[in-house]
């Protein structure tokens, strides 16, 4: 089955849900409704042997309604045909996760959440991946400036300061000095 035949099969199976198809530079793109995106992608994996999810991209079409767009690139190792499936998402709406269809979607969707602020329903672990936990903005949105916005630095990444008390070689102000407390300590002559 080549890519054009796969597009035809998807149009037949999903009918109205496939809003438009484009062929540009040898690549086939299907524009689908948000509700049908996950069933369609699952169909690609199960029936069309697309076992490899290459990439998930998120776009901010600021000014247009719906605002966001998700782009899924899929291909299969048995046939090497490439399909692109796009869905438009209004601001604030959640996208059903495809991490149960392809495990690699886990990190892709975390990145889409981190950079664009798109929420994924059913994602096992939706948190920021490139920016730190608690970063307040979504950097790849078109209303975020290139130079960035000031924000608080992240908390100290790990444990607190190691306790100082009672160690033989730890010196604290006012306490007995090291040489007296620990006779084996080397003296500077």
């Amino acid at each position, binding site marked *: 089955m080549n890519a054009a035949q796969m597009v035809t099969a998807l149009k037949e199976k999903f009918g109205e849900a496939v809003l438009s198809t484009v062929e540009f530079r040898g690549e086939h793109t299907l524009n689908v409704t948000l509700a049908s995106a996950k069933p369609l992608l699952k169909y690609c994996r199960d029936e069309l042997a697309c076992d490899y999810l*290459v990439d998930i991209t998120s776009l901010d079409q600021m000014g247009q309604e719906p605002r966001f767009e998700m782009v899924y690139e899929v291909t299969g190792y048995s046939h090497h045909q490439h399909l692109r499936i796009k869905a438009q998402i209004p601001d604030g709406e959640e996208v059903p996760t495809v991490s149960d269809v392809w495990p690699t979607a886990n990190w892709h969707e975390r990145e889409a959440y981190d950079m664009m602020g798109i929420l994924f329903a059913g994602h096992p672990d939706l948190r920021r991946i490139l*920016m730190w936990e608690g970063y307040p903005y979504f950097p790849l949105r078109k209303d975020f400036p290139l130079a960035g916005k000031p924000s608080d630095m992240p908390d100290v990444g790990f444990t607190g300061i190691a306790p100082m008390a009672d160690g033989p070689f730890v010196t604290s102000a006012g306490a007995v000095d090291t040489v007296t407390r620990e006779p084996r300590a080397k003296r500077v002559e």
Partner: protein
Amino acid sequence: MPTVTRDYDSPDTAAQTARHLEAMEETTTDLVGEKLVLNMGPSHPATHGVLRMILEMDGEVITKAEPDVGYLHRGDEKIAENMHYNQFVPYTDRLDYLAPLANNVAYALAVEKLMGWQVPERGRAIRVLCCELARISAHLLGVGVFAMDVGAMTVFLYTFTEREKIYNLCELLTGARFTTSYTRVGGQTRDLPDGFVAAVRKFLDEVEPAIDETDKLLSRNAIFIGRSQGLGVISKEDAIGYGITGPNLRGSGVEHDLRKAQPYLDYEKYQFDIPVGSHGDCYDRYLVRMEEMRQSVKIIRQVLDQLPGGPINVADAKGLLPNKERVLMKMEELIHHFIISTQGIDAPAGEVYFAAENPKGELGFYIHSKGGGVPYRLKIRSPSFLNLSILSKMIPGHMLSDIPSVLGSLDFVMGECDR
């Protein structure tokens, strides 16, 4: 005389602890003994860049591992939305900074796919030469650093001596040892200089014995085998499901190489094999990289033997900077130069995805263009980012000392991972 028995508290603290723990077991059902949460990185010699791993360990064995990436995030995708296509080329150098020529070529090919251009034969041959040199360079580093992390420190220096020669070749070709920025959309900045072909042939004659020497030092070395065989196993289903690409995928038994599956730059003209592993462990990935280096040498020899003559850049007047002498003397060329320098090339509206077989895996560029010289969205499909996603599944069950081996065998680059 009657025997008197007295019980003394043993001064042996280990025995005391053991007795105390046993006593605790009788009183509570909680797991006796705590798990240690160990933070590895981001500044750590074995993590190959700024990777932070949060490891939960039960003694020496790791029970949970979570990679924390993003320490080298520079916002390349946001920057790309504000630059012309050609202005973004230096940023591609800094993605997989161990093989900058390969990134340059992959990006130029992606934009040329959008434009619908194809570089002429000689330009394609030069690009293949660049990609394969970059592959040898990246794998020399990958194998050398993997060996160094598991203890074979000499190998690192041997492979770096050969890499130094590649850097000299890059300097001869592009002017820079490291961040080459060699390609432009539609071609290259300059043709091969005199003596370059001879220099590459000399290098190939020297690198083959060096690869053989590395092979002799490592492949049958009991310590190296002990530290890499059977560890870090990635099954075929996991490799495909988690989006692993490159030598890591081939090490797990999937015979897939973009140079053969979706040939670009005339790769179908050259004879080469794809090494495929069978166990998916660290040792197999190491063997795949070694063999890929030999295959790259084979490809480069064929490129040099068949090197065509002719132009290296696309013959499109509107898209490329015109000849400098004509720019300084003719009005039309001057206007062209001005328009291209200030507004960038005029790309059609549309979206393309192009992926190249980079040394680390499948480096893809998704370009969404609304026309004009600046992309609306550029997404970099980074192989190292996805290769790292398998860590949280693969590492639990290994010991702490297996981590440098596993990370070295995955051979990722944080510049590419975080962009």
